[in-house]
């Protein structure tokens, strides 16, 4: 360390440096080091609360966002699974439908496949089979025809299958146990979704369509199981309210 020169002023008086050098040097107290160590230990102990106090706003915001996102997600899922099909004479129970679907899936999984493409039916075949095998409850069993999955109010307006499909731009007649497409508008929702003349519409939203099935209106998205010679298709068709 280079010591500064302390010289007199030109007029022979002491310079400020000389005056400052006269100041007594103070020393640290004897317990200085131990007190520093104690403070270091104390700071270490409080480091977690410090983390919380520093980031509490961020953590709270993230938690709130997560809660809101979860709520929105759950409500959207609930809305999507809200089945609106009712059958006047034979409202099928959704739980039964799902159980049947699970059964088919399990039985398929338990079979050891020798040829994967042969032994493993595709998704729509499985669903169709599940729908066909699903137990049906009649209006007499349940008393009244009611919306399935229980979220649609009973007072909602219902329409027949023919009218419902007509709203989607499809004209159908009930033949051989299927609603068969006789004509459709190309620029309609059904036409855009890939439905063709001659297709048989078996189900909507997982519910088999009988001749006298009634469908609750006011739902935007309908998923149809369409059967045509040699294949089955699950199509999403958006129909206005």
């Amino acid at each position: 360390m280079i010591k500064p020169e302390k010289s007199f002023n030109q007029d022979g008086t002491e310079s400020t440096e000389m005056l400052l050098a006269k100041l007594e040097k103070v020393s640290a107290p004897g317990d200085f080091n131990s007190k520093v160590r104690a403070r270091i230990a104390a700071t270490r102990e409080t480091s977690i609360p410090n983390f919380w106090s520093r980031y509490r706003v961020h953590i709270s915001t993230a938690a709130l966002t997560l809660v809101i996102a979860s709520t929105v997600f759950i409500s959207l899922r609930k809305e999507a699974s809200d089945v609106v099909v009712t059958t006047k004479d034979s409202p099928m129970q959704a739980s039964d439908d799902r159980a049947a679907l699970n059964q088919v899936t399990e039985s398929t999984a338990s079979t050891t496949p020798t040829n994967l493409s042969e032994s493993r039916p595709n998704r729509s075949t499985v669903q169709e089979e599940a729908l066909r095998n699903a137990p049906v409850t009649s209006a007499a069993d349940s008393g009244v025809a009611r919306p399935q999955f229980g979220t649609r109010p009973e007072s909602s307006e219902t329409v027949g299958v023919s009218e419902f499909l007509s709203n989607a731009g499809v004209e159908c007649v009930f033949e051989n146990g299927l609603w068969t497409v006789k004509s459709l508008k190309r620029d309609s929702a059904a036409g855009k979704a890939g439905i063709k003349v001659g297709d048989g519409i078996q189900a909507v939203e997982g519910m088999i369509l009988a001749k006298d099935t009634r469908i609750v209106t006011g739902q935007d998205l309908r998923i149809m199981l369409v059967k045509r010679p040699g294949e089955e298709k699950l199509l999403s068709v958006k129909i206005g309210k």
Partner: protein
Amino acid sequence: MSSEYSDNELIEAAKGGDEDAFGQIMTRYRDPLTNYLFRMLGDYEEAVDLAQESFVRVYFALGRYTTDFAFSTYIYRIATNLAISEIRKRKRRQLFSLTAMFDFGDGDKKDFEPADSRPDAAEDVSADEQSMMIAKAVASLPEKYRAPVILRDIQELSYEEISEALGLGMGTIKSRISRGRSILREKLERYLK
């Protein structure tokens, strides 16, 4: 670890978990640092507290410390920042204190009173009193001149070290020291014999 080790060697050892090395660093710098902070703040208890805080900060920043700069300038920089922050806090407290509200005419209480211009005044004051007046004059220097003057004329650091410790250019440091001394000269006129 013996005290003949350089600062950087001790710091490297402390980084590796050698508590004794950190203890030696503290022992080496605690007195100059306390003295510096005492001259900056004019309060011994506060100076000791901030000197300890400086070492605590050094300890937790050991991982980030690089030996590109001298440790002496590094610790003075931390201490200076703490001291400036404390001085500003005091100013705010003073600004909002009730005593300041009713203190008409006196202005800043820490302002140094002009020297008595009587010809024989210097002879009347004792050495202790003179020291006290010098200390008060230093403490009353504006913030930007105080640290450079203390580091140069009391702590006896070189211009390069002061420049590094305060993070200012050499020209700025020289000019501030010169201006600070000139202000002190005016305040301590009666003691310059």
